[in-house]
Each structure stands twice: as C-alpha cells, then as structure tokens.
C-alpha cells in the first residue's frame, strides 16, 4: 500500500502527481503528514495516521512483548500518552498462538489496547533467543523452547501470524544477521531479505487494514546497504525500517549506516529505526532523519530499579537512596514522581512488586516526554538548540560527549560547544 502525503511543498512533476492520484485512489491504512522539517538537520515532525489513532512522530514505542506492558495496565499506558506500542510475533506466536488471539479479536482485543500496535516478524528472536537450526531460502528452522518441536518460520507464516494478531504495522520477515558478522553471509542475508519482502507482500491478507514495513539490511557495508535501499524502495510499502543495527556494533559504524539509510529512503514515508532507545541515540537519530523507535531497555531496566533521568540514570535500589526523600526527578510530571520519593521506592523494592511498576511508569513517561519535547522543538524551529541543551544536561562537560554523537550531529550541521 502506498503512503499518501500531504505536505507544505507543492508536487510539481506530472509523474509525481500521477503517483499521488494513484495512491489516493486506493484505501490506505497509513498516511504520513509532515508537519515540520528542521532546516538544519534531517529531522521531521509528523502526524502518522494509523487505523487505531494518529501518532505524533518522532515517537518512541514501548515494547509489550507478550501482549502486556510489564505490570502496567492499558489504562495506565494510555494515560501516559502512548499511541503505539509493540508486541512480539515470536513470543505470541508460541503462546498463546495466533488462532487463540484471532478468536479474541486480534491482539487489540486480547490485551484490550485501543490504540496502535506494531508487531515485529519474529526474525530477531531467531537470532537472539533461539537455538538456530538452519536458515534456508524457505525460512528459519528452529526448535521450540517450550516443547522441543521443530518449527519453520517462513515469510508466509510470519505474515499469517501477524495477520491474526491484527497489528496496525507489521514487519517483514528478514534474514537477520548480527551486526558484528562480516563476509558473504551479510550479502546473502540482504538479498534474501529482499526476496522475503516480496513474499511477505504477497502473503499479506489485509493490505487495507495492516501496514507492512520493509526492513533495510546490509550490515555495516555501505554498498550492500545502498543496494538494499535501491531494491526495497522499488516496492510499494507504506514504510521502511532500518534493521540490522543496534546489536553491539561500533557506534561510529552505526550512525553512518543510519544516515546513509535516511538519505535514500523516500521523504514521504515513515522511517523506523529498530532497537534504539537510549536517550542520546534517540536524539541523534532523530537529527539523522528517523521517525520511529522501539527498545526494551527502558521497561526492562525499570524492573531492576534503574530510573531514567535527563542526566543519566538512578539506581533506586542503591543504599544512597534509602533516605533520599526527593522524587526520582523533581521536574517529572509522571504519577510516580508526583507521589513517591526515592526513599519510598527504595524501601518498597524490598517488599512488593509495585516498586517495579512505579519505575516502569516513570521510565515510559521519560521516554515519551523526551520525544514530545524533541517534536515540539522541531515544530518550533529550535531543534538544534534543544540538542545542545540536552547534551549539556546529560553530560557533565563537553569532553564527556561521545565522539560518535559529536560526529553524527556534525554531519547534519550541528556543532556542539
């Protein structure tokens, strides 16, 4: 499905207007409205119209792996202003399985989430979690950790499960290779991902309700990435993800691949950078032109008592907070900070799971608030200033600024003091 676009600049060429007319004539479950573009960097602020609700971008999408956001209710998640979150096809495909979820009116019905859902393909879990049997052209063969049975996850099966889940955005099954791998395997995986993209597009039973995103691969090889970009952008998908990164590679290589990708992705379609969630990474990658992000980090780290703050993080379980009666962040407006102190949370960690929920709420709030502030600064035309202030808050002095971030920002005309 083609994404339609409604932006400030006029569409000039007849070719482009033909394209738009064609796009508008078909019902589209995704529309991207570019609200503002930063004149200095590649950042954009957009409204992403999806079936369940509009989503303001740049957006951070919390991950609710198994159809739940780790101890917080859907009402709490909604109150935090979350407009889209993730579910995992691999996990949900195993338990409770797609047939059951279909009976429950899709994942939305099953977990009672009224806003948008994005499901990944299950590909990443293949690499990260499961004893890999084999990757062939057919699909990914692996052994189920629950009953030891051999399962074959093909592009068709992945899309089938995601069709049952009924997510607003589905991801293609890609041939995932760790970003630290080099050599011919990377090229093989890239080409296969293109072929699998075509199979996924063909397998999508609900193109009018569910958006299938492509995932750009190619590892850390600029040439391979470029080839992948050229190929995948020929396909008529509503959005593109930048995949194969955020897996332990050097940050210097990471940002170069991100910016290369956004350079060659269509302006009028959303760009989703997968697996990125650290505050610094988010801000830099917005500057490099990305619109959507997801990461388990904020919610996972919360359960260990780690609270995210503008100056880094705070380990609430540490002794130093036992008698610290300030909230986690005095400027934070989340329910946790409005009501509880570090000392209380510190003590509560010894007695009850609710302590984890308080930190989870705070961390999600932190991430969403960060993105809202980023977005507003782009709309107001002061994103470069925002970046400088952000960096000053996060790092105690300019010589602490990570060099990769300095370089990446410099590449989009941001100089830091």
């Amino acid at each position, binding site marked *: 499905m083609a994404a339609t676009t409604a932006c400030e600049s006029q569409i000039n060429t007849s070719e482009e207007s033909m394209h738009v007319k064609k796009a508008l004539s078909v019902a589209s479950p995704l529309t991207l409205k570019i609200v503002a573009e930063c004149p200095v960097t590649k950042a954009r602020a957009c409204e992403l119209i999806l079936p369940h609700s509009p989503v303001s971008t740049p957006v951070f999408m919390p991950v609710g792996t*198994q*159809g*739940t*956001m*780790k*101890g*917080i*209710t*859907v*009402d*709490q998640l909604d*109150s935090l202003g979350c407009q889209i979150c993730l579910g995992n096809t691999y*996990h949900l495909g195993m*338990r*409770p399985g797609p047939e*059951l979820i279909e*009976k*429950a009116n899709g994942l939305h019905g*099953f*977990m*009672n989430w009224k806003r948008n859902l994005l499901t990944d393909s299950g590909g990443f879990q293949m690499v990260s979690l499961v004893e890999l049997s084999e990757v062939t052209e057919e699909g990914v063969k692996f052994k189920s950790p629950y009953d030891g049975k051999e399962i074959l996850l093909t592009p068709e099966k992945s899309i089938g499960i995601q069709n049952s889940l009924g997510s607003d955005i589905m991801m293609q099954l890609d041939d995932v290779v760790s970003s630290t791998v080099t050599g011919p395997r990377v090229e093989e995986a890239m080409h296969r991902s293109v072929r699998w993209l075509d199979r996924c597009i063909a397998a999508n039973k609900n193109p009018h309700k569910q958006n299938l995103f492509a995932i750009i691969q190619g590892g850390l090889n600029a040439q391979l990435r470029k080839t992948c970009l050229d190929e995948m952008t020929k396909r008529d998908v509503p959005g593109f993800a930048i995949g194969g990164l955020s897996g332990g590679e050097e940050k210097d290589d990471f940002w170069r691949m991100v910016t290369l990708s956004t350079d060659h992705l269509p302006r009028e379609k959303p760009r989703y950078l997968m697996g990125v969630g650290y505050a610094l990474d988010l801000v830099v990658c917005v500057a490099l032109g990305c619109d959507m992000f997801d990461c388990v980090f904020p919610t996972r780290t919360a*359960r260990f008592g780690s609270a995210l703050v503008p100056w880094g993080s705070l380990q609430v379980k540490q002794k130093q907070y*036992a*008698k610290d*009666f300030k909230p986690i962040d005095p400027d934070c407006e989340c*329910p*946790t900070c409005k*009501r*509880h*102190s570090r*000392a*209380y949370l510190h*003590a*509560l960690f*010894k*007695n*009850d*799971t*609710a302590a*984890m*929920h*308080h930190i989870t*709420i705070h961390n999600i709030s932190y991430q969403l608030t960060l993105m809202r502030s980023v977005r507003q600064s782009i709309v107001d035309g002061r994103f470069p200033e925002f970046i400088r202030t952000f960096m000053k808050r996060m790092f105690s002095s300019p010589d602490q600024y990570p060099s990769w971030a300095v370089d990446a920002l410099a590449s989009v005309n941001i100089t830091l003091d």
Partner: protein
Amino acid sequence: MQLELSRVVHGTSRLGVLRGVGNKAGEYSLDTPGCLLYTHLGTVPHLTQDTLHTLKHLPCVSQVTLAEHQEVLEEVKDGFRKFAGLHDTILYLSLHDPAAAYPTGYTTNKTVSVWGSGGRIELTVAKFMALLKTVQPDWYQSIADGETWESNTSRKRVRKSVDRTLAHLDKCLLEHQTTPELEGMEVFGVVEGRVRSAKETAKRPVVGFCLDGLQTGSMDQGLRTELISAVNRELPEHKPRLLQGVGRPDEVLACVEAGVDLFEGFFPFQVTERGCALYFNYNIYPDPEVTGTAPTMQPNGEVNPEDQIEMTTFEINLKDKRFQDDFAPLVEGCGCYCCQNHQRAYIHHLLVTNELLAGVLLMIHNTAHYQGFFKALRDALANDNLDGTLSNRDHTVTTGC
C-alpha cells in the same frame, strides 16, 4: 472511637459501625463486620495508586507492619502517610504480616521477634514505642506473645504467653500515658485466645481487642468458634474484636457468627499469589437455576513456600488449561476493573507467561470480590439471613456472583 451496634443476631453476631475512627486523618467510619486493607509498606500488593483507585469500596483502615523500616522512618519528616504517598486512610500497625509465615521460638520476656526482608528483628517495648512515635498510626496492637496456636502447646506455655502479653500491654499503656506523641493513638489489646487473657485485657483501657492464637491452620473452625465465643463473653460489648490471621470466607462467616467484628484483609493477596481468582457466590438469595457444581478442592501444583494454605473452593485456578480459550470475565457481573476489561483467557496467558500484570489484575479482582463478600455479610445480618450467605456451608461454589 466508638462501636455502635445496630443489631446483635442470635446473641452473638454483631452488625455495627465504628465511628470516630482516627483523629488525625479526619472522621471516618467503618462498617462491621468488615476487613482491613492489607498492605506492604502502605502499598496494596502489586498496585500503584492508579490501579488501586479503580476499586470503589476500599476499607478505610490500612494495615501495615513496619519494623524493618524503622531506621528510614525515623528520618521521615512528614510522617509515614506522606512517605508512602497514601491516600486518605486510617493506619493500623500490627506486629506481624498475617500473610507471611514466621518461625516460632524467639519470644522472650522482654522481646518479641518479627521478620522482614532482611531477617529477624527483635522488638522490646521501648523499641516498639519508638516505632509508634515514628509511624504515628491511628491504631496499633500492643506487643504480644502469640506463639500458642500449635495444638500441642503446653498449659504452662499458654499461661506464660498470656502473662507476657498482659505485661507488654501494661508497659505499652504506661508509656502511652506519659508520652505526648502517642496521644490520639488507639491501642488494641491482644487476647491470647483464652478466657483469662480476655478477662484481664478487658480491664485495661484499650479501644478494642485483637484475638490472637486462632489463626487459620492452627485449629478447626469448631474449636475456634468455641474459643471466640468464650472470649467474647468477657469483653465489653461496645469495643471491636479484630481476629488475626483468619481470612477464608467460610471461616470468616463462622467467626462473624461467633461475634467477630474485624478481620485482616490478607486473603485476597494469598489467592492472588497462587494465581487464583476469588469466585464464589455470596448472594443471600441464590438462584437455583444459576447454581452449578463446584470444582473439587485441589491443591495448587506449585506450592509457594509462603502459602501455608492450599487453594480453597472459593477460587478458580487461572493457570488451568480449561481457561485457555475462555473469553468470559473472571466473574460474570463483577464490576471490578479486571472483569470489566479483561477475560479469563488473557489472565491465563499472563500467568503462563509469568507476566507481572497477572498479579495486578488478580489483586484488583480479588480485593473487589472480597469486599463484596463483606458487604453481603452485613446485608445478611441486617436481613437476618446469615445462613443464606455462601449459599451453603458445604463450600459449593456456584456460578455468578
């Protein structure tokens, strides 16, 4: 604080209202028979304020046990309530967590031991009074030696327990009268399950009575009823009796009949921890067309070492495979957040996948259902129909609620 009884049924069951509850937090009243809100450090287990307040009828008294946090609490300037971010509630400080098992054999003439996440804490009367000054509860129980609930406890040991408890109470009361910070705090004297203890404690100027030594698992209900009845005869009518350590609905019902006014509200938590949902009919006018057969009493497969009590017939075990594709709410017609928003199949999934949300949702439902049970008890007493509650005493679980 005054207990106004509106009815006394069959000479023992009491329906009433506790008025003038709590001086500091304002005027509250608590309908009796009723239960307290069970908390960990002021937090209802698993719940944050937002999820807690999906519950409409919370008891106005929250129970806390705080000995392990004494050190921090001493540094809290604005009192425990502020520290815990508590909603408006009366605070009742008890010695032990009624849901946690603890080893016996550590009581001495001068100390009792309580347990926290870091292990054993020894409390002298002085230390306990210091804790009270720090926490500033509205009610508290005096220190007690309650280790007499084992059925083979010797008479000598029982006598010692009664004597010690009385001695601790007297020390508490003395300090109370001489310490201005303790003014306004109401003391519950602890009755160690025996007539002599009741007689003696009744002579002291306490505001109510905790009945100790009668916990679930220590004796059968027949004996418990006997002991409570005997003890109650010695206690002044207009002071509340709070029974410690009993929460199972059938036992609660029997104890209400024997004259108990207040219960600790820990049972919903225990049910939650074993992945179960309270599911029992407490209509006083059961519909024979709706009643069904009960699932038989089954011990929970994975017994949590903290759970001394096996799953009861008042619960359904959501881990059971039969709920995998059951799209009904936990209890049809239940108005709680969980039943209004989620289905059994989803809760089952959360339990199977070890997700934290299971505890949150079950705690909400179990608390709501349990509160509903107490309301039904009170209604039954008002209508003289206590026998109709719980449909019948054979633990038949019926559908609907």
